């Protein structure tokens, strides 16, 4: 499988992370999203006329939607799928708010930043409420006590919210959920999400 990838993209990271957690190999092809806008080049537009990243290729299959990619990567792994549709849609709204705030603050994208942050906070409160109620029932992940593509889809934009000026300090359940994901065997980071150094004691 080939992933046309941008190292700083939260959506590309969802796919890199899902592959790593499920032990699947991806051949990463770096795209110069910034500053060269290579994802809008004629060659890339031939592959994906929508001009977006990530693009996942599995033999003849070409996927351009990250939810489709997550489903594809876990099609033979039922433990990673579940009651996800609502959460995959929720992940899209996180991208449109927290994700865009981040692109504004980091890469200078034109965004109504106050609206993006305000709506992002509203979504984080919804997420916090749900994860809190999950904890009441003894569960740490979005749809149960094991992670699914719902968690992977929602994690990157949530964890990177501070890059866009939205703090995560006041969401204890979100923090514990992120910690549980970061502790999973095979977890990989991306810039803005630190390694959990606690897990390896220094010699």
């Amino acid at each position, binding site marked *: 499988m080939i992933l046309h990838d941008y190292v700083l993209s939260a959506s590309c990271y969802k796919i890199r992370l899902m592959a790593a957690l499920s032990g699947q190999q991806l051949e990463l092809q770096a795209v110069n999203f910034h500053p060269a806008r290579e994802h809008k080049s004629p060659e890339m537009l031939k592959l994906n006329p929508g001009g977006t990243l990530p693009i996942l290729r599995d033999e003849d299959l070409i996927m351009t939607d990250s939810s489709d990619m997550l489903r594809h990567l876990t099609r033979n792994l039922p433990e990673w799928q579940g009651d996800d549709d609502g959460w995959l849609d929720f992940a899209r709204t996180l991208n449109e708010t927290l994700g865009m705030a981040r692109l504004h603050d980091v890469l200078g994208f034109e965004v109504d930043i106050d609206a993006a942050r305000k709506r992002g906070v509203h979504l984080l409160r919804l997420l916090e409420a749900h994860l809190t*109620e999950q904890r*009441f029932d003894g569960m740490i992940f979005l749809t149960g006590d094991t992670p699914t593509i719902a968690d992977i889809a929602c994690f990157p934009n949530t964890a990177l919210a501070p890059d866009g000026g939205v703090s995560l300090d006041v969401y204890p359940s979100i923090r514990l959920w992120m910690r549980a994901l970061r502790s999973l065997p095979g977890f990989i980071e991306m810039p803005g999400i630190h390694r959990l150094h*606690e897990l390896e004691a220094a010699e």
Partner: protein
Amino acid sequence: MTRLWGIVLNWIAVGLAEDIPVGTVVPRRVDGLDLAIWRSGLGRFHAWDDRCPHRGMRLSHGFVRGEVLACIYHGWQYDLDGACDYIPAHPDLTPPKTICANTYVCEPRNQALWVALGTVNGDVPDIGDRIPIRSLDISCGAPAIARYFDHPQDPLIVLNGKYDLAIALQPSTSRSCFAHVFAGAGQDKKIVSRYVEKLRDELEAA
């Protein structure tokens, strides 16, 4: 001594004990003061200024290893008294005693965690046998919240009523608080949680 709301204050709640598991560190802003609250491997809580003495990095981004908190930037380790006891760039150096995080007295009680910002004066407030619900951020100043409940300005707001609520208020800034919510033993946590969300909506609309 710390004055908040015009009265001398001592203990402020900074969270539910269950939200700060062993081996973790969290940030808390109390009346504009940034703290790093962490729990050691053996379960002891600590409240420190959220600032590494090395280069000013927030300690709340750090990591706990056993009985030390390490700063994420250069890995400097601080022991239970706040003293730096290891500098990874100079592994054989005994760090000078002057390198020390600024610490505050911190006490868990009834499943809440309390911090004394000044000299300890009086007992940790008593939540009784109530159960912890959750912590909720509210974009509203502490005095306004107390007025809304027709309650004296106090770090612990005890509400008689349906859910036997006790709200330990942590003022973060003049316009925001972190409310640590407890309810009567036997209450349904989800019902109480949704109720306080509605309270928050009302407080923020006002």
